């Protein structure tokens, strides 16, 4: 199994080094949905996601040589998407890393407030999802990001630490806090009903 995964990542690394367009098209087909989902969780809204997705794939084409195939492709892809998102938000809102007093909010700025239904409300297709959509919408992006990377993308804590650029302990605490918020919302809903 490990050998198969290694071979696969090495095949991707080789293709990216050669700027193999056919391989890139296949990667887009395979990872597009997950990339869109990650960016929605990170941004908390749908606009700008399309531009960031396109920009991410162009970066993959141009900087593909920096992927060496020794680790999985997904964390590397998400790292590119994350860095582009932070640059994008900095440009739009004059965001500065120094502007935050809270060390937990060290890299990702909070979502921009937008009117209308959130992408979570629009995308909810089960009753439970509807119940937590609003919570996800109001949850700080760093906690949403931790939840999606751990429970949707199934990244290991080490991979998450590499993507987010924070220590393992911070990764864990973000997941715990995100989970606690979701759980509290569900309990509240239960009491209300």
């Amino acid at each position, binding site marked *: 199994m490990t050998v198969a995964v290694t071979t696969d990542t090495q095949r991707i690394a080789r293709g990216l080094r050669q700027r193999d367009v056919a391989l890139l098209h296949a990667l887009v087909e395979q990872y597009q*949905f997950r990339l869109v989902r990650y960016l929605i969780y990170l941004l908390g809204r749908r606009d700008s996601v399309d531009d960031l997705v396109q920009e991410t794939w162009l970066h993959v084409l141009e900087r593909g040589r920096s992927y060496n195939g020794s680790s999985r492709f997904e964390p590397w892809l998400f790292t590119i998407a994350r860095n582009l998102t932070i640059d994008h938000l900095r440009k739009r809102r004059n965001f500065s890393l120094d502007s935050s007093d809270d060390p937990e909010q060290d890299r990702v700025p909070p979502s921009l407030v937008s009117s209308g239904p959130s992408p979570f409300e629009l*995308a909810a297709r*089960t009753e439970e999802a509807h119940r937590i959509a609003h919570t996800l919408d109001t949850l700080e992006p760093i906690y949403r990001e931790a939840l999606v990377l751990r429970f949707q993308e199934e990244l290991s804590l080490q991979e998450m630490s590499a993507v987010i650029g924070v220590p393992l302990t911070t990764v864990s605490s973000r997941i715990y806090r995100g989970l606690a918020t*979701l759980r509290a919302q*569900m309990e509240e809903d239960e009491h209300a009903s």
Partner: protein
Amino acid sequence: MQADLHNEMRQNIDKSLVGEASPEEQQALRKHLLACAACQKYASDSRLAIVSLNGFSFAADPGLTEKVHAALALRAQQLQTTRPNRKRILQVSLAALLLTIVGSFAALHMGNPLAAILHLPLSQAQAGLLTFWIAPSWCFALLLPVLLLVSARSANKKGQIL
């Protein structure tokens, strides 16, 4: 005391869900859950919260995927066309460098025969070699890599605009 135990077990539940619980912690948790309804509920609420995350459907727009494919194809084509140019510029630059070396060698070692053939003093023959051979080829050798850098930067900018 009892509250501490429940807190500890709830921490173990969180750790277990995140994948951080040790085998000992998991074993203690299993044992505790058999007898504690409150912690069972905590565990099932936590699992439900995680499962709820699967209840969202963020369909990727097919139009976006098409757009990405087209942008990638175009950018790859641009990168392909800029690559041979770089190679050619480097080759010309190296040739110019070689010419500079040959010119310098000629000025040093073949100045006398050349001056005799052209009926000129040695210093004038060397000055001529310097002006019409060594200096131009040296400029070419230096200028072309700069051009290469400028063209690479403009290609990158084009890619960002896409």
